[in-house]
């Protein structure tokens, strides 16, 4: 099962959580790829002994760059589906399994796991998520609950439809950009609820980045 799915985990300085994440994921998935963004801590040492593919970037290309590298690897190795999850442990492996099963069942092109219980998020993230939800449905006329979710899976053949360009300070927006491009190009998108594991230890955007993302969503709508 899941032989044509590659699970990609972009990682940067995740020595605290990465072993735990890989312990769970490697039990359920045969093909796991970790893309390390030149971590300065012991991330690489922690994951060396796992049965995974490991790509090490010589310089930090950000989340967007890691996702691009993962996609290129998936295409070279001819994987039909590419799943992403975060390395900080905020996504559960059971939710990953759910989205993988769903893509087989529904024959979708992109499945996004959305955080169903916003009450578990801190106030700042809750407000930010709601604002993004409302803005997205207003601008794109489609109701998606979590466009920035890092837990997702897509068919590698839709690369040209979802191609993302976020780099530099925008590297964190790759997930949102993929979602916006997929909607704009009429990809078959589904979403399923996942657990929201929220804690201050999980990385996320700050207010300034959130506001910038709002502007970028409008920009992508108009100019892409």
């Amino acid at each position, binding site marked *: 099962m899941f032989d044509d799915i590659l699970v990609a985990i972009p990682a940067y300085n995740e020595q605290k959580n990465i072993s735990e994440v890989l312990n769970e994921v490697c039990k359920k998935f045969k093909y796991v790829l970790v893309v390390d963004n030149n971590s300065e801590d012991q991330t690489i040492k922690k994951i060396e002994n796992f049965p995974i593919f490991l*790509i090490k970037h010589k310089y930090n*290309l950000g989340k967007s*760059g890691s996702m691009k590298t993962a996609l290129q690897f998936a295409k070279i190795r001819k994987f039909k589906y590419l799943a992403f999850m975060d390395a900080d442990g905020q996504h559960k492996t059971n939710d990953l399994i759910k989205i993988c099963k769903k893509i087989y069942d529904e024959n979708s092109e992109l499945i996004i796991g959305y955080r169903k219980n916003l009450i578990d998020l801190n106030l700042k993230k809750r407000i930010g998520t709601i604002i993004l939800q409302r803005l997205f449905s207003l601008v794109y006329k489609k109701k998606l609950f979590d466009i920035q979710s890092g837990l997702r899976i897509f068919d590698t053949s839709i690369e040209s439809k979802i191609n993302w360009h976020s*780099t530099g300070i925008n590297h964190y927006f790759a997930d949102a950009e993929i979602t916006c491009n997929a909607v704009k190009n009429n990809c078959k998108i589904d979403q399923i609820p996942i657990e929201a594991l929220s804690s201050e230890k999980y990385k996320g955007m700050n207010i300034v980045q959130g506001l910038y993302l709002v502007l970028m969503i409008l920009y992508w709508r108009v100019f892409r």
Partner: protein
Amino acid sequence: MLYITQVNYKKRLLNKISYLFWICIWTLIILASLRPEFVDSYFTENYDVDVFYILSVLSIISLVILYFFSLIKINILEKKINALISAESLKEILEKIKDK
């Protein structure tokens, strides 16, 4: 700026012609800064033009244009660097897989 130009010439970041060109430019700027009234009176008497006002406006326009082109260049270089790093990392792992 004369010193920086000299350093960059020694580092071979500027060729001889560029070096001489920039030395002339900086020298002219130094002379105009030391004797602005000379430059101003020359242009006011002969051409009835406030040359420093025109230069100020042109400087602002030049700065904006330079900023724009620098931004474009940086974006191009960033893309090239990202592509190179990604390709190198992929090459490494594919070779490892091949060896196995």
